[in-house]
């Protein structure tokens, strides 16, 4: 689904089991984008499992950037939302409601958005909203 609201273009990533790894969930291509929101949903509850997000750019000299601090999703219940504030120092949060972005957005260059899970436990689905900054820039959900 990719409709436009004031949040921008919506990209859904279907529910997937968490791997004990850094896994690419979204790919940014064609130029820079502004991420205006990123919300997940617990589809299978997990035991102890610290999770977070990072951006890994294509540019050879650029390093990865954490988009949030880690959250142990163990207490989160089936159906709970997962959210980030857009401030890298802020931890991911969970619950029946989550704050979404205390900033206007996060600028990302061409590369990938990766979900990092400390354990192969539980599952989640994710939805991302973005505005293209460069002509032709896109974000698509990626499945290993």
């Amino acid at each position, binding site marked *: 689904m990719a409709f436009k609201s004031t949040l921008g273009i919506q990209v859904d990533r279907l529910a997937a089991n968490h791997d004990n790894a850094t896994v690419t969930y979204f790919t940014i291509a064609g130029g820079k984008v502004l991420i205006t929101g990123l*919300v997940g949903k617990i589809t299978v509850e997990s035991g102890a499992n610290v999770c977070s997000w990072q951006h890994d750019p294509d540019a050879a000299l650029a390093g990865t950037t954490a988009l949030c601090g880690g959250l142990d999703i163990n207490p*989160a219940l089936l159906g709970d*939302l997962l959210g980030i504030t857009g401030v890298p120092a802020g931890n991911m949060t969970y619950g029946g*409601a989550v704050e979404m972005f205390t900033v206007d957005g996060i600028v990302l260059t061409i590369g990938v958005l990766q979900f990092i899970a400390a354990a192969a436990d539980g599952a989640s689905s994710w939805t991302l909203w973005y505005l293209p900054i460069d002509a032709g820039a896109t974000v698509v959900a990626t499945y290993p």
Partner: protein
Amino acid sequence: MAFKSTLGIQVDRPNHLVPSATNDPYFTVVGDVLIKGMIGEFTGNPDAAMVAKWEAHPTAGTVVDICAASADLTTCDTGDVISFDGVFANALIVAHKGAVEMMGGTKGVAVTAGTLDFDVAGAVGTAQTAWTLWYIPLTPGAYVVAIP
């Protein structure tokens, strides 16, 4: 009234007597939505102690306070407006006058299916409020309706 603006879709909950010391569901959320703003107005004076906050009660999931409890609202008058800034740790904002900040702390609050409850402590007295909420659907077919 349900028109679209940059705030999203508007839902009005008409004037309603505030029940004392209880969680009262004011809005039903179907699907996932992004709350872009919420304001209340006193339509009857709280002539007794009244402390209030908003909670998200999901059908499945974890109950979350989407703002902290207000100060005592006893001194508020009819016409005073109420809101919250979207930061869960911050208290319900009550302007004992006609202006109040709305969602200055976040760009919105994502809420999953369930109810939004006005959680009130205190005797409340004859307090009455009316509320208006704005939202954007996050999942297909998602919506919010006021509970009479």
